[in-house]
């Protein structure tokens, strides 16, 4: 598919030069959104505010004032980002009608550079899921085959980019929620080092693994968006300093040596997917890159650990949705306890309830040590194994997903099967390392994603390699 959008840099340059207007770009995005409505990628547009912002930027340009390096670039935010101009629902009934009183820091930073949010993308409610089928509102369809899922939970964002609705979209990645839909839809999905982008103003899923990142058509665009968002933030105590060189102007040779994760190429991976990954690795070898196999034995327990730690944090983070101050409140309730019970049981969907139940269970007195503490032990071990691996190679490779996009409804009855789809992505979240999913051909007529990980705070190096690799795979 040829995109109607040039690179983000090119768009901004055109706006800055006055050869195109922000208003024109916003209209182009809104028209595309309306045209592709059948894919259900978008929950709501922020058209009124977007048009106003576009007019402001166009006025600044005509007045000869400086405009930012994302001037007039339209984008789409996953609906768990607090944004002005439309409700923020996290695709959940309990937040239906919630109008954000403040904006997320990531949005503020993008707006400060002139980017314009035009719409809110669909997701699995509260980002719980791998297909967007857990959205309380609708299921997004895969741009390549509308009978298939786009992946999740940032499925609306990935589909939006590949449906060409906007030059980029924002997602969140707690266990693979940017990379998996990028893989299923054929987009570039970037999960930064934990803490590199402020989480302030993003509806929390699992605070210790949540990260914010871009979904784009190219590594260069992803790097540009990251460069604007990255850095320490006074509103998020877990943020870290950005790299001094920043994340743009990426240029560099391929690395001399990379590692392929043994466990990621083992049984359970669709052979057609594996074939594409092997081909991608062979392309590296053809460029004289040494490829070694790296084993990370604790990966076998990573998914189990993730599905203890994540629900534990989810059950805690969802406590604030209690029907007392904002969002859905069951007005039939006659007592306080009834209000809590009814508001939450009618406001939360099945998957949120499942995770609250699991999380509450593993945090309960008497079970905490057996589950939560043990899972943290696995996490610590996994971190040690990754650290060791990064002593010998700078990058670890493997597929992003064990399969390609599956049929809508195929896994909906089997939560365990659905959780297994995250098997190759959760480790990067537990370890906090940066990871990217790059398009790597197709299998079963659907896109395949190649995943590359680097050590913590090596985002620039990872993006540099990814850019070189992208050219190689093209």
């Amino acid at each position, binding site marked *: 598919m040829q995109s109607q959008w040039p690179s983000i840099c090119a768009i901004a340059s055109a706006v800055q030069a006055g050869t195109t207007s922000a208003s024109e770009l916003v209209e182009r995005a809104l028209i595309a959104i309306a045209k592709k409505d059948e894919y259900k990628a978008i929950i709501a547009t922020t058209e009124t505010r977007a048009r106003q912002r576009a007019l402001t930027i166009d006025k600044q340009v005509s007045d000869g004032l400086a405009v930012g390096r994302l001037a007039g670039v339209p984008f789409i935010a996953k609906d768990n980002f*607090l944004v002005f101009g439309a409700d*923020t629902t*996290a695709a959940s009934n309990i*937040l239906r009608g*919630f109008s*954000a*009183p*403040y904006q*997320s820091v990531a949005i503020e930073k993008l707006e400060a550079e002139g980017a314009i949010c035009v719409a809110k993308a669909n997701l699995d409610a509260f980002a719980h899921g791998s297909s967007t089928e857990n959205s309380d509102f609708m299921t997004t369809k895969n741009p390549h085959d509308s009978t298939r899922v786009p992946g999740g939970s940032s499925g609306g964002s990935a589909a939006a980019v590949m449906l060409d609705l906007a030059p980029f979209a924002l997602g969140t990645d707690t266990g693979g929620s940017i990379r998996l839909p990028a893989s299923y839809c054929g987009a570039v999905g970037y999960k930064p080092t934990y803490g590199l982008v402020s*989480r*302030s*103003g*993003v*509806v*929390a899923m*699992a*605070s*210790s693994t949540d990260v914010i990142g871009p979904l784009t058509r190219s590594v260069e665009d992803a790097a540009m968006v990251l460069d604007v968002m990255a850095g320490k933030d*006074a*509103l*998020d*105590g*877990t943020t870290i300093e950005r790299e001094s060189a920043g994340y743009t102007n990426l240029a560099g040779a391929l690395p001399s040596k990379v590692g392929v994760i043994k466990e990621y190429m083992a049984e359970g991976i669709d052979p057609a997917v594996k074939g594409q990954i092997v081909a991608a690795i062979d392309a590296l070898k053809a460029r004289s890159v040494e490829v070694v196999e790296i084993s990370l034995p604790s990966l076998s327990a990573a998914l189990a650990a993730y599905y203890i730690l994540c629900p*534990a*944090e989810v*059950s*805690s983070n*969802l*406590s*604030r*949705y*209690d029907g*007392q*101050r*904002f969002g859905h409140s069951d007005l039939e309730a006659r007592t*306080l306890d009834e209000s*809590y019970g009814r508001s939450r049981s009618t406001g939360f969907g099945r998957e949120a309830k499942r995770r609250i139940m699991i999380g*509450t269970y593993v*945090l*309960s*007195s008497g079970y*905490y040590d057996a589950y*939560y503490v043990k899972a943290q032990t696995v996490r610590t071990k996994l971190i040690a194994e990754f650290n060791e691996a990064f002593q010998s190679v700078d990058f670890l490779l493997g597929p992003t997903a064990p399969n390609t996009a599956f049929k809508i409804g195929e896994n909906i009855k089997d939560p365990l099967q659905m959780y297994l789809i995250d098997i190759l992505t959760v480790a990067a979240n537990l370890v906090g390392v940066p990871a990217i999913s790059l398009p790597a051909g197709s299998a079963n007529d659907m896109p395949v994603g190649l995943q590359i990980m680097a050590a913590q705070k090596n985002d620039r190096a990872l993006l540099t390699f990814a850019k070189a690799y992208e050219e190689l795979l093209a």
Partner: protein
Amino acid sequence: MINAELRKSYTVTIGIECHVQLKTATKLFSAVGNDARDAEPNTLVSHIDFGMPGALPVLNSEAVRLAVKAAFALGTEPERFSKFDRKHYFYPDLPKGYQISQFDEPIIGKGSLEIVVDGETKVIGITRAHMEEDAGKSTHPAGKDYSLVDLNRAGTPLLEIVSEPDMHSSAEAKAYARELYLRMRYADVSEANLYYGNMRFDVNVSVSKTSELGTRTETKNLNSFRSVEKSVEYEVDRQIEVLEKGGVIVQETRGWDDAKQRTFSQRSKENADDYRYMPDPDIPPIVLSEEYIAEIGAAMPVMPDAWRKRLSSLGLDRAQTETLLDAQVEFSKEGYLQLLEAMLDNQAFAKQVANWLVNIDIPFMRDYDQPIKVQRVVLYGAIAELIGDGKLSSTNAKALITELLAAESLPDDIAVYAADKGYIQESDEAAIAAIVARVLKDNPQAANDVKNGELKAIGFLTGQVMKASQGKANPGLASQLIKKQLTD
């Protein structure tokens, strides 16, 4: 009523948890003002305090600094590593559905402090102290079908100090509460305003006839030393009465009715709550460097026990010393103890000033609602000199001190001022001898009584001399001269 003998047959065990509000400018995790005293409801609330979606707590480093000071004040040092945890429960004044607290790795570990009760010194152990955020305030208007929630207080930084069950009487409990109060004030970590609930005590009490501890009750939210004392007394007698009647003590939370001076049952604790504690992933652990700790330790103000030692050379009695220690915080601007400390190389003078502080200055301050403008060290130096020279009676000294404490500034020469005001006593022997001669002549009966050995008549005659001199005569000198003239 329980008689004293029966009460004696029980061992009382008391442990106290104290919530101290740290005096930061802003809340523990948000940049909103911390002083809710005069604020309209829900005006000191940010998206963080309100528990908005996407809101993240950011630790206030000033609260950490105050907690480190509190550690030194509790006779220990802060832990090098501590972390925050989430304590989960649902209540409308707890917006996030969890309270951010410190569960298993608090910022302060074991410490101790000394109390003195009936002349005996006792060491009370501190189990731990941890930082946590306060909840909001719920009110339930009588007869209404709604409750009101004010979140101004939500997120206020608290330090919860937990004692060992080392106290065994209401007097010890009261002494511990006061000592804790003094230390928090001297360390300047809290306004510790009891009236506004800046310090609240939860008192755990049990009684037992054996070496095994009895079932305890917890009386919550006491905000005065007296209510700590009285609630323990009430609770001890209540528990003994229940046990003597063959009943059992229910482990429960109780409240204190100050009007009726009794505790009342609030809620049973038989089913232990499961708070599902979990490390808070939004707040990185607190890791303190040796340098940071040493810096704060070196700048620590002097604690009450150190002041007691410093003042001990003055030979004050315990009540006087404690009055000074209390006054130091009650009138913190006056710097009483620093004043005394500066005089310590002149012990006699320092002791005299201490007496004036306790007997004149502090009582005066209790009725005086304006700032003091004069320099006490100059005032008391001049007064001491006048007394030393025999020019000022103690009665007049008190009047002069009180008058000058309220002055805009001290007169250039206090002696001249005192003379002008008629406070100086006559010590000119010839002048007083003349008055004595006149008085003896006017009171022949009394003079005769003295000659006949009735010494109490000397007092009468001295009084007459004082009267004749309009209070200016040095009374000691006057009585000497009376005796002298009558025996000559």
